[in-house]
C-alpha cells in the first residue's frame, strides 16, 4: 500500500490538509464566538464602533482622540448623543473604513476628526495596523479594500477562519476571565489619569527636540496615499452634507506648523468642513499639569478641552 513515494507523500499531505481545514474551521469559529461576545474592553468598543455606533456626533481619530474627547461632556453641553470611535495606534485609512460603515447605518449630525501633524506623513505602519479590521471583513466585505493596503494577499489569507483573530487570543481571554476588573465603556472615552510633572515635561520636550532634529528629513515627508484617504474622508462627509470639524487637539509642545497648515489647506476644499487648531492654545500649550505624557492630555485636560470644544459646537455649529 502506498509504496510509490509520490502517492505516499501526496496521499498523506491531502489527509493532513483536510485535518488543517477542520481544525481551522472549528478553532476559527470558537475564536469568532469569543471575539464577538466581548462585553468590555477595547475589542468590545471596536466592535461597537464598527457595527453599531449611530450617535449624533461621532469622534474619529487615534489615541489622541480616545484620550482627549469626553463624549459625556460633549453630549451634556450640546444635547446630542456622542460616541468616540477613535482607536489607539490607528490612522486615517482606519477612520475612512469606520466612517464608511457608520454612514451606511445612519448619518451623524456632526463628525469630529482629530488630526495631528504626523497624520499625513510617511509611515508604512499606519497601513499595517489595519489588521484590526480583519475580524469584521466577514460581515462587512466592503472592508476588504482597506485591508488590501496591508498586503495584496490579505484577501486570500481571509480564507482561513483563524487568521482574522491573529494576536487577539490573550486579550480576549483576559477580557473574558477578568471582565469585572475592566472599566465599563464610557462612550469610547479612555482618559489617562496620571499627570506629567514639570521636570518630566522639560525632559521629554528636550528629548523630542533632539529626536525631531535627527529625523527632520523623514518627519516632513508627505504620504500621497494618506492625503488621498484624508480627501476621501472629507469628500464623503461633505457629499452627505454632514458638518465636519477637523481638529488638532492640544499639544504640550507644538508639532510641525507646516504639516498642520497643509491639513488646514486640504479642509478648505470642502464645504461643511471646518479646521480648528487647538495646538497653539495658551490654555494647554506647555501646561504640564493638563498632560499625562508628551502627546496626550490627562483626564483634567481632556475634560477641560471637551468642554471648550462642546461650547464651540453649541455656539458655532448647532446654532447655525
Amino acid at each position: 500500500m502506498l509504496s510509490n513515494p509520490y502517492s505516499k507523500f501526496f496521499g498523506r499531505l491531502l489527509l493532513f490538509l483536510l485535518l488543517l481545514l477542520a481544525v481551522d474551521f472549528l478553532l476559527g469559529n470558537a475564536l469568532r464566538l469569543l471575539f464577538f461576545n466581548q462585553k468590555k474592553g477595547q475589542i468590545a468598543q471596536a466592535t461597537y464602533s464598527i457595527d453599531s455606533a449611530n450617535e449624533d456626533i461621532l469622534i474619529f481619530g487615534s489615541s489622541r482622540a480616545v484620550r482627549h474627547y469626553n463624549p459625556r461632556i460633549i453630549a451634556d453641553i450640546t444635547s446630542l448623543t456622542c460616541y468616540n470611535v477613535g482607536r489607539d495606534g490607528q490612522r486615517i485609512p482606519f477612520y475612512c473604513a469606520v466612517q464608511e460603515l457608520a454612514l451606511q447605518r445612519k448619518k451623524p449630525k456632526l463628525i469630529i476628526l482629530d488630526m495631528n501633524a504626523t497624520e499625513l506623513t510617511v509611515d508604512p505602519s499606519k497601513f499595517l495596523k489595519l489588521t484590526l479590521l480583519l475580524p469584521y471583513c466577514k460581515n462587512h466585505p466592503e472592508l476588504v479594500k482597506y485591508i488590501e493596503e496591508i498586503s495584496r494577499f490579505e484577501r486570500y489569507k481571509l480564507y482561513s477562519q483563524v487568521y482574522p483573530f491573529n494576536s487577539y487570543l490573550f486579550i480576549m481571554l483576559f477580557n473574558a476571565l477578568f471582565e469585572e476588573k475592566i472599566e465599563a465603556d464610557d462612550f469610547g472615552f479612555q482618559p489617562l489619569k496620571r499627570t506629567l510633572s514639570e521636570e518630566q515635561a522639560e525632559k521629554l520636550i528636550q528629548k523630542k527636540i533632539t529626536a525631531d532634529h535627527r529625523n527632520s528629513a523623514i518627519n516632513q515627508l508627505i504620504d500621497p496615499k494618506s492625503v488621498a484617504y484624508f480627501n476621501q474622508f472629507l469628500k464623503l462627509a461633505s457629499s452627505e452634507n454632514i458638518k465636519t470639524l477637523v481638529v488638532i487637539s492640544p499639544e504640550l509642545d507644538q508639532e510641525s506648523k507646516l504639516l498642520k497648515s497643509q491639513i488646514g489647506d486640504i479642509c478648505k476644499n470642502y464645504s461643511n468642513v471646518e479646521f480648528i487648531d487647538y495646538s497653539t492654545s495658551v490654555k494647554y500649550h506647555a501646561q504640564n499639569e493638563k498632560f499625562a505624557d508628551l502627546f496626550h492630555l490627562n483626564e483634567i485636560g481632556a475634560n477641560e478641552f471637551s468642554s471648550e470644544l462642546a461650547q464651540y459646537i453649541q455656539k458655532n455649529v448647532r446654532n447655525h
Partner: protein
Amino acid sequence: MLFNSLEFVIFYLIVTCIYFVIPYRFRWFILLASSCYFYMAFVPIYILILGFTIVVDYFVAIEIEKQTGKGKKVLLICSLIANLGVLVVFKYYNFFVDNVGFLSSQLFIKNPLPYLEILLPIGLSFHTFQAMSYNIEVYRGNQKAEKHFGVYSLYVMFYPQLVAGPIERPQNVLHQFHKKIEFSYDNMVIGLRIMLWGFIKKLIVADRLSIYVDSVFNNPDFHNGTSVAIAAFFFAIQIYCDFSGYSDIAIGSARTMGIDLMTNFKQPYFARSIKDFWGRWHISLSTWFRDYLYIPLGGSRVSEYRKYFNLFLVFMVSGIWHGANWTFVIWGALHGFYRIIGTWNETFRKRMISKLHLEGNYIVYGFEIAFTLCLVTLTWIFFRANSLQDAFTLLANLKSFGEKPFLGDGTNGMAHCIFAILVLLAIEYKLEFLPKRFNLTTHPLRAVRWATLTAGIFLILIFGVFNGGQFIYFQF
C-alpha cells in the same frame, strides 16, 4: 522575495514540483532559472554584478587547476581581488567617503571624494564569501574545478541560501547538483518540518519582538535603562530567531529537493563562553573565517601575542563584513576583546573549577550561560543601533535601569513577547538538554506527529506576525 511571504510559498511550491517532474538532466537549469528569478525579485539589475563574479570565478578556477607554482597563486589573487573589489565598491566605498568627509571637515577642507548613488546588492557579502571559498578550495586542491558553467553558477546562486547563507563550501554542495536525486518521502517530511520550525522562529518570535525592539532602538532618546535592557535582550532573541529561522527555511527547502546544506546554528544562547558561542552561532561564517583567515594567519600555532592579534583581527573583519558602519566594527572588536580575555584566562578558570570541585555543577553551568548571554547582549546594542551616537545614547540611558519600563504595544503585545520567548526556550532547552526525549515530530504514533505539526501551524496563525518585513541578515 521574502521567505515569510505568500509569494515565496507559491514560488517554492511551483519550483519544487517542476524540479521533480522534469528529467534529471534539466534540473540544474530549473534551479538556476528560479534562483535568478528569486534574486531579481529584489533589484533585478544587480544580478549582473553576481553574473560578473560568476564568470570570473568560473574561468579562473579552471585556469588555477591547470596552473602550477606562481601562476596559480597569481590567478587566485586576481579572483580574490575581483570578488572583494565588487564588495568594496558596493558595500564600503560610501562608508570610506563618509570617513574621509569627516576627517576633511576636521581639517576644514572639502571632501575630495564623491558619493556613489548605489544600493548594496542584497546578500552580496554571502555571495562573495561563497564564491571565494570555491576558488580557495580549488587552489588548495581540495576541490576540482567545476566544468559545467550552469552547475557552477547554481553553486553560488542556489536560491535557498543565496541571500543569507549558510555560506557553503564547494565540497559539501557542488557534487550534490550532479547527483540523480529521487523524490523521497523522508526528505520531503524532514525538510518541511525544518521549514515549519524556521517559520515559527521568524513569525512568532523574531517579528513579534522586533515591534518592541524597533520602538526603543529607533527612538533612543525616549527610553529609560529598563526599556533599553529589555530591548537589548529582545534583540538578542530576535536576531537569533530571525537569522536561524532563515537558515532553517533555507536548509529545509533545500532538503525537500534532496540537497543537504550545512547546519548554521546550535542553540547559541546555551553557550558557556564566547568561544563556545562562536561554535554555535553562524557556524558557516565562523568556520569560513577559521579556515580562510585565522588558520592562514598562523591560527593558534604562533606566539601568544600573535594569537591574540589573529583573534582580534578575525573578529574585526567579521564586524566589518556585517556592515559598513562603525557600530559593526565595535561589535566585532568587542567580540575580539572577549575572545582574547577568554583565551587568556581559560586555564585559570578551568583550574579554579577543578580545585573547587565544581565540574558539572548546575549553578556554575547556569552562571556561565547567563554571563555569556549578558556579554553577547551588550554587543548587540552596537549591532542594532542605527548609529554610533544612538548606541552611546542607549548605553547612557542604562543608568536609569530600574525605572518603570515602556510596554510597547501594551500588555497584550508584551504578553505575546513573553509567550514567544517561552515557546523558544522550551524547544531550545529540549534540543540542547533532552535530545532523545519529547521528539514529538518524529514520534512513532502518527496522531502525535500530526497533532504537533498542526499545533505548530496554528501557533503561527494565532500568534505570528505576518507583516514583519524582511530578514535582518538580508542587508549584509
